[in-house]
C-alpha cells in the first residue's frame, strides 16, 4: 500500500518546527543575557500576557481637528508558550486646524491601521514580534518590531530591549507626480526594578533615527512674510530617557492607592530639547471600580531651522508648529468598572477616559489675530474589555 505525504499537513508542522527553532534561538539570546548579568540566578518561567479582547471608541477634538473611530484588539493563547494578537485601529479625521484653514481648505480622510503580533515565552524570556501597516489616502506606513524582556535577580529586575524598522511612503493629494519615502529605526533598552514590597522604578532609553522625506508636502513656511514650501532636513536622530517611580501609599486595611511620577528627557540633532513630567494617582473605589487621575506637563524648545517668519534665507526652513517652542498641560482621569467577574474564567470591564489638553505656543503666531497661538483639546475613550 502506497503512502502519500500530505503537503497540507506537513507544511504547518514544518513551520511549527521553524518557529520553535527561531524562538529557541531568541530565547537563547535572552538566556545568555541573564547568564551574563547574574550567572548564579535561578531561571524563572515567565507568563504570557493574558487572553484578552478590547473594543474602544475614541474621539480627539480640539484646534479645529476632530479624529475619532473604533479600535479592536484580540489576543489569544494558541499553544503552550505562544499567544497571537490582532489589532485594528481607525482614525476618521476631519481637519480644519490653523495650518489647514490659513494655508488650504478643510478636509476629511480616514486612516486604517492593522497590527499582527506574537508573544512567546521561552524559558525565562518573553519575546514579542509584531508588524503594523497603516494606510491613509496620502500616507502609507509599515513597520516590524522585535522586543525581548527577561526577569533577572530572582524576579527583582526585568530588563528589556527591542528594535523597530519602519518604512513610509509619502504622497500628495492632487499631485500625482509627488512621491517620496522615509525610513525609521528605533532601538529601545529598559529596566524595571522592585525597590521594596511597595515601590517599583523603571528607566527606559530609546534612540530613533529617520532618513528620507520628513516634512509635509502641504505645509508652508514664511520667509520675509511670504509663503514658501517648507524645507526640512532629510535625516534626524533623537534619544529619549524616561524614569518612573511607582508606589503603593495605602495603609493596611484602607482602599489600595498608588502614586506615580514620570520624567522624560528628550534631545535630537535638530536641536529640540524637551521634558515631560507626569504625576498620577490610582485608587480602588469599592470592589468594582478603580479610578486614575494624572497631570502631565510637556515643554520643548524649537528646532534650529524653525521660524515663525524667517528674516534670512536658509537651506532649511519650517513653520511646523510641532517644531515650535511650546508647552502643553494635560489633566486626565479614567474610571474602570467591573461589569461581571467569574473567578478563574473571565472578567468584563468598562472603561471611561476623559483627558483635557492645553497647548500654548511661544513662537507660532496665529496670523488671523497676530497673537501667539494656543488651543485646547479633549480626548474621550470608552472601552469594553474582557480578559479570560
Amino acid at each position: 500500500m502506497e503512502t502519500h505525504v500530505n503537503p497540507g499537513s506537513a507544511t504547518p508542522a514544518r513551520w511549527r518546527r521553524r518557529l520553535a527553532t527561531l524562538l529557541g534561538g531568541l530565547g537563547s539570546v535572552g538566556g545568555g543575557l541573564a547568564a551574563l548579568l547574574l550567572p548564579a540566578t535561578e531561571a524563572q518561567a515567565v507568563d504570557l500576557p493574558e487572553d484578552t479582547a478590547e473594543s474602544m471608541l475614541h474621539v480627539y477634538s480640539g484646534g479645529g481637528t476632530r479624529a475619532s473611530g473604533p479600535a479592536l484588539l484580540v489576543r489569544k493563547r494558541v499553544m503552550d508558550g505562544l499567544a497571537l494578537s490582532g489589532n485594528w485601529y481607525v482614525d476618521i479625521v476631519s481637519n480644519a486646524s490653523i495650518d489647514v484653514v490659513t494655508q488650504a481648505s478643510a478636509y476629511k480622510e480616514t486612516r486604517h491601521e492593522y497590527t499582527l503580533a506574537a508573544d512567546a515565552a521561552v524559558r525565562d524570556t518573553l519575546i514579542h514580534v509584531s508588524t503594523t501597516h497603516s494606510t491613509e489616502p496620502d500616507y502609507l506606513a509599515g513597520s516590524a518590531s522585535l522586543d525581548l524582556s527577561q526577569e533577572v535577580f530572582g524576579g527583582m529586575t526585568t530588563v528589556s530591549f527591542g528594535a523597530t524598522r519602519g518604512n513610509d511612503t509619502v504622497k500628495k493629494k492632487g499631485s500625482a507626480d509627488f512621491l517620496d519615502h522615509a525610513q525609521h529605526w528605533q532601538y529601545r533598552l529598559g529596566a524595571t526594578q522592585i525597590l521594596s514590597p511597595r515601590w517599583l522604578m523603571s528607566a527606559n532609553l530609546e534612540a530613533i533615527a529617520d532618513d528620507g522625506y520628513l516634512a509635509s508636502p502641504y505645509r508652508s513656511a514664511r520667509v520675509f512674510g511670504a509663503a514658501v514650501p517648507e524645507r526640512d532636513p532629510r535625516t534626524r536622530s533623537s534619544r529619549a530617557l524616561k524614569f518612573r517611580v511607582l508606589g503603593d501609599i495605602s495603609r493596611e486595611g484602607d482602599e489600595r492607592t498608588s502614586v506615580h511620577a514620570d520624567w522624560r528627557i528628550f534631545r535630537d540633532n535638530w536641536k529640540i530639547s524637551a521634558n515631560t513630567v507626569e504625576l498620577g494617582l490610582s485608587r480602588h473605589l469599592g470592589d468594582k471600580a478603580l479610578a486614575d487621575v494624572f497631570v502631565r506637563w510637556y515643554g520643548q524648545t524649537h528646532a534650529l531651522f524653525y521660524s515663525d517668519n524667517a528674516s534670512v534665507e536658509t537651506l532649511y526652513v519650517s513653520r511646523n508648529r510641532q517644531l515650535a517652542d511650546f508647552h502643553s498641560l494635560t489633566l486626565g482621569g479614567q474610571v474602570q468598572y467591573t461589569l461581571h467577574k467569574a473567578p478563574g474564567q473571565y472578567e468584563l470591564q468598562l472603561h471611561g477616559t476623559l483627558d483635557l489638553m492645553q497647548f500654548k505656543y511661544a513662537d507660532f503666531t496665529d496670523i488671523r489675530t497676530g497673537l501667539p497661538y494656543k488651543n485646547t483639546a479633549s480626548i474621550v475613550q470608552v472601552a469594553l474589555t474582557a480578559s479570560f
Partner: protein
Amino acid sequence: MTRPILTLLRRWLPALGLFAALGGCAPIEPWVKPYERERLADPVMKLSRTSLGDKHFEHVVTVREAGRGATGVQGGGCGCN
C-alpha cells in the same frame, strides 16, 4: 623600566582588588521575596488599563509634540499629514 609597571600596578591594584572581592561574593539574594509582592501585583500598580487607550494617547501626542520615544508604547502610521 620598573617605574611604569609600579605606576600601573598602583593605579589598577585597587580596582583588581575590588573585582576579586566582588567575585567572591555570593549571588545577590532577592530582598523582596515573591510572597511579599502582593501589593505590587494589585491593579493600582498597573499603569496601563487598556493597550488600545495607551496607543490612542500616544498617537495623539506623537503627532503634536516633537519629543518621542521611551514610552513603552509602539505607535504606527502618521495621521498627521
